[in-house]
């Protein structure tokens, strides 16, 4: 239908990355979507791999043999990073969607203050927590074990 109205100009996936402004909240949005899709993919693969136990002991051990090695440890670590980001940023988003940490409606007087300014400390706090988890996770995955 859009074609009938003129030349299509929807940005598509590129619109997640750029296309208007390049604020940090856009990249939190994009990372949230990417990690969400990544976790969904991991979840499907995880179910597929662990379902081999239903076939029998040998099938289970064979599938476990296939998912060992440094590459899979790195993959598991990336899953951990995705979970850390998606969960903590998700909690921040839930709070924002409940109207917490976004301020009240104000008189728009230039230079305009937006809810992003009110949200900034929450976003920074969430990022610091994510970074701390990612660092501890890295130590746990690659140093302590």
């Amino acid at each position: 239908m859009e074609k009938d109205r003129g030349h299509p100009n929807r940005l598509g996936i590129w619109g997640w990355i750029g296309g208007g402004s390049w604020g940090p909240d856009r990249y939190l949005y994009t990372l949230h979507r990417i990690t969400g899709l990544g976790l969904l993919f991991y979840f499907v693969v995880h179910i597929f791999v662990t379902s081999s136990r239903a076939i029998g002991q040998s099938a289970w051990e064979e599938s476990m043999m296939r998912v060992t090695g440094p590459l899979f440890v790195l993959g598991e670590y990336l899953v951990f990073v995705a979970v850390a980001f998606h969960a903590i940023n998700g909690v921040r988003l839930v709070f924002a969607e409940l109207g917490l940490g976004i301020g009240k409606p104000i008189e728009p007087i230039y230079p305009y203050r937006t809810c992003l300014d009110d949200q900034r400390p929450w976003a920074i706090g969430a990022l610091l927590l994510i970074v701390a988890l990612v660092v501890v996770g890295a130590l746990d995955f690659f140093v302590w074990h």
Partner: protein
Amino acid sequence: MSNGKVPEQIVFRIRRFAPGRDMEPVWKDYTIAYEAGMTVLDGLWKVKESIDPTLAWRASCRMGVCGSCGMLINGKAGLGCNTQISELATSVVTVAPLSNFPIVRDLVPDLRPLFDAHTALSPYIIRSDSSEQEEPTGEYYQSAEEMESYLQFSYCIKCACCMAACPTCATDPIYSGPVALAQAHRYNTDTRDDGFEARKDVLAGEAGPWRCHFAGECSRVCPKGVDPAKAIQLMKRQLVADALGLRKKRLPAELAKKPDGIERRPDIPEAPAPTV
């Protein structure tokens, strides 16, 4: 150099598209002389008047009020009329039509998707006492605090800059977008309105605010400080409260009572008769 920052010559790199002539939009360069105080819109007029009269865009008030001249300026959505070339601090100004809307011609986007979504959310006062609205006998009472709860969102000029910047609008044609949702919240919050239930079907559906994940680009590019992202999050809170049965139900504002015992001064003329 004109003022130490802006070169004397400015290159306008404009994304051109003419239906029937071009298969795809193409970039064309136009060099014009910079003058102090020149806005991007002024530059487009100069290109049209002195180089290429076929250049098309939409504009009207030239003072950031009508919302007609929304365009991508150096990749960022904004109004051509209130963007000074000097503040861009570059000798090449790229101008493109707003993203996420079909291109009618050159810099003219087709904003019908915006207005369709806007219309679907009934952006006007809805009340049961329609006779009072058709033949008003007074004013509905509203306190200053009640007005402040929606006033910020009522400054929207429907320029569509927010929808061009929104990453959800970039991939999701069903999403109503920041303009329509902010306006729906503006009316839902208005104490004179009683239309929450009427709008709820659209708001709670797949076109509603739950497709927003708070990228905040709408608020960042809004030339009027409307902060649509805030309106959308506050609307989500309203919808959650409603789903949990926690939303404060209220009757729409009643007519303001006229003060008792006060006579109209005879030297104050009557208001003119309604024209519509």
